């Protein structure tokens, strides 16, 4: 009854059918017909009912506020399993059958997949959408427009800017400096190992965490020039990050515990792990997984590659997209804008679902200015707000991330058990991704 195996085999089953749907989704070229379907964004006559599927807990509270204020645009919310655990596949099936909900929650790393399969409505011409761009944190807007002129395919909802959680008490007791660069981080790793503990773990399956580190180093895994995709999992920055962690693994300075496992929680709880470079939502993972360490943690910016630099990565975050087949794109876009920009909604989503807003104004919510008891009363969200602003806007996700993650994770697992290296894993992921793209007739640049 291992729940993780259960979840993973479920994901594998889903991934299996994903291929089917991808094949039947035709040979859309992931390209340039965007402007064509943006022309007709007019309000509908009479009352409108919208459906919206996502998996944010507490979303109902925000929607209740909207429904009360907008009797003519009533929204029904359905909660599904997390995206890669089934909801994305449901969306693809429903798109195929022309039964998709009006609005769907889609993580940034999966938006290109839906774009390539022609599942998203371009809402750029819906009133207020283009103007809303400047309200959002730079990189998120880049994600939902794909850098195309006159195109907006989703409204950013939340983000996962990254920083470093660390055990302030243990660092202080041991007299170890809190690292600000990755070099210092490696030195601290050795010092902590000498104390009998580990600085952190290297998660074999959280490839998107690793992508966040590459993102910080200003690496790019994918690019799309409108014609074809460039896949580059092994560029200089990716190589640098992979070699760095490979070094820590080779020296036995990091644990190989799987992230979010019971074992991992226990290691956090008992002080065997001292840091975790993670996203803003990780604060909740620590406080609930390691309850005995309340008050001992603090947050500092991510270690930097260049001393004195200020770069951050991002791990996670979602957008809300209007799905193809919606009869009311105008109303759907208005709702999505309200949901992700209005203070009342952002407050409700932050309280109910712990969402970290994607708007710059949202980062100033009163709730995000307070000190947290678990983190020794530090106002930790200030650190993440800085990280959000320091995230490279031009990182692009590929159109088959579920597959890329799986293939790289396989290699990571092997590297952790001493077969091959992290770089080998990226190389294998690169090749598998290119052949997957080609098998789906998605053009790949040489």
């Amino acid at each position, binding site marked *: *009854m291992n*729940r993780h195996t*259960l*979840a993973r085999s*479920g994901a594998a*089953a889903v991934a299996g*059918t994903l291929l*089917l*749907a991808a094949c039947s989704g035709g040979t859309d070229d992931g390209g340039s017909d965007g402007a064509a379907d943006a022309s007709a964004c007019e309000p509908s006559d009479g009352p409108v009912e919208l459906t919206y*599927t996502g*998996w*944010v*807990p507490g979303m109902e509270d925000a929607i209740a506020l909207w429904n009360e204020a907008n009797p003519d645009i009533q929204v029904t919310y*359905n*909660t*599904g*399993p*997390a995206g890669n*655990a*089934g909801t994305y*596949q*449901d969306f693809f*099936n*429903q798109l*195929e*059958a*022309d*039964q998709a*909900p009006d609005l769907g929650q889609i993580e940034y790393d999966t938006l290109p997949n839906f774009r390539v399969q022609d599942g998203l409505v371009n809402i750029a011409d819906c009133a207020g959408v283009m103007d809303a761009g400047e309200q959002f944190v730079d990189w998120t807007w880049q994600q939902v427009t794909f850098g195309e002129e006159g195109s907006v395919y989703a409204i950013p909802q939340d983000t996962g800017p990254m920083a470093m959680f660390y055990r302030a008490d243990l660092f202080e007791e041991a007299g170890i400096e809190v690292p600000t660069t990755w070099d210092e981080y490696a030195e601290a790793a050795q010092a902590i190992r000498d104390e009998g503990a580990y600085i952190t773990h290297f998660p074999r399956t959280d490839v998107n965490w690793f992508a966040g580190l590459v993102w910080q180093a200003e690496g790019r895994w994918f690019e799309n020039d409108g014609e074809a995709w460039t896949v580059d999992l092994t560029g200089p920055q990716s190589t640098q990050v992979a070699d760095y962690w490979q070094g820590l693994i080779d020296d036995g300075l990091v644990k190989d515990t799987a992230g*979010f496992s*019971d074992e991992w*929680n*226990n290691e956090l*709880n*008992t002080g065997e792990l001292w840091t975790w470079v993670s996203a803003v*939502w990780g604060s*909740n*993972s620590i406080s*609930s*997984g390691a*309850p*005995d360490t309340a008050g001992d943690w603090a947050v500092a910016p991510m270690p930097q590659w260049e001393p004195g630099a200020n770069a951050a990565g991002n791990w996670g975050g979602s957008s809300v997209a209007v799905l193809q087949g919606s009869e009311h794109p105008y109303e759907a876009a208005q709702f999505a804008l309200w949901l992700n920009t209005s203070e009342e909604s952002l407050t409700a989503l932050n309280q109910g*679902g*712990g969402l970290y807003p994607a708007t710059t104004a949202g980062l100033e919510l009163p709730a995000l200015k307070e000190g947290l008891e678990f983190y020794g009363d530090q106002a930790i969200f200030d650190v993440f707000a800085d990280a959000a602003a320091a995230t490279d806007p031009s990182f692009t996700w590929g159109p088959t991330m579920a597959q890329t993650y799986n293939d790289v994770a396989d290699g990571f697992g092997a590297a952790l058990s001493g077969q091959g290296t992290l770089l080998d894993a990226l190389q294998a992921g690169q090749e598998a991704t290119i052949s997957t793209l080609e098998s789906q007739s998605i053009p790949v640049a040489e």
Partner: protein
Amino acid sequence: MSILTRTEGYGPTAAPDSRGVRERPMSRLVAFVIMGAFTLYFLVPIWWLAVASTKSRGQFASTAGLWFADFHLWDNLTYLFTYDGGVYLRWLGNAVIYAGVGALLGTLLASMCGYALGKYVFRGRNLLFNVILGGVLVPVTALALPLFLIFSAVDLTNTYWSVFLPSLVSPFGVYLARIYAAASVPDELLEAARLDGSGEVRTFFTVSVRLMAPALVTIFLFQFVTIWNNFFLPLVMLSDEKLYPVTLGLYAWNSQTNAVPELRTAVIVGAFVAIVPLILAFLGLQRFWRGGLAAGGVKA
């Protein structure tokens, strides 16, 4: 026939048979060791689940998995049944409807179909039976997507029907019913019923069903467990949380534990509570199994 031989050893009916070949103690020992190993293999996870359900969130990660820590079962149950407005109870109810009613009607359909194939001679009988037998080979998972497209063509996705209707069909049940009907319902008896003026339907319900009872219970249990555990079909069909069966609900919760770590408790206790109806169904129906076997003995 396989089901007959399997059920025989089930109860304490495996009484010493004086005419039987004398068992060697050695082979007996080996058999016990193997059975013991399998019993452990199946029971340890359930034991783990039972133990884990009683732990608080903090102790769940920090104490040994196979033994108790402080007893928090009632708190956990309260949390489970009140989270998100008590949606778990609804999921449990849905699963009982899908599996209970589905298995009942499914058993009726399968037994009538199998009985017809087993006791009546008509043209195309074997062809029909072979087609149905072919259905046994098709995994239900492979049918989920085509079913989804069919149901969306008639606008029935995301309704009770979309999960309920496909659950009624059980090629394996038809197969079992045919085999069992052929073996346990004597033609002479049907002949006698006809002579006494009983219609075919009446004969089926008053005479044949009784003779086939052990097979029906088996089909019912198989169907019940299959529907209860069927996860992929509801995953594909349903988007309204209120229609979820308990398996899908737990899966959805489990997929959210990264964002809401508190849900782990609910997932574990929920999984534990979810196996209770299955255990009850098995324990409750076991005696019919045995009773039916004895009834079968009369026909000889």
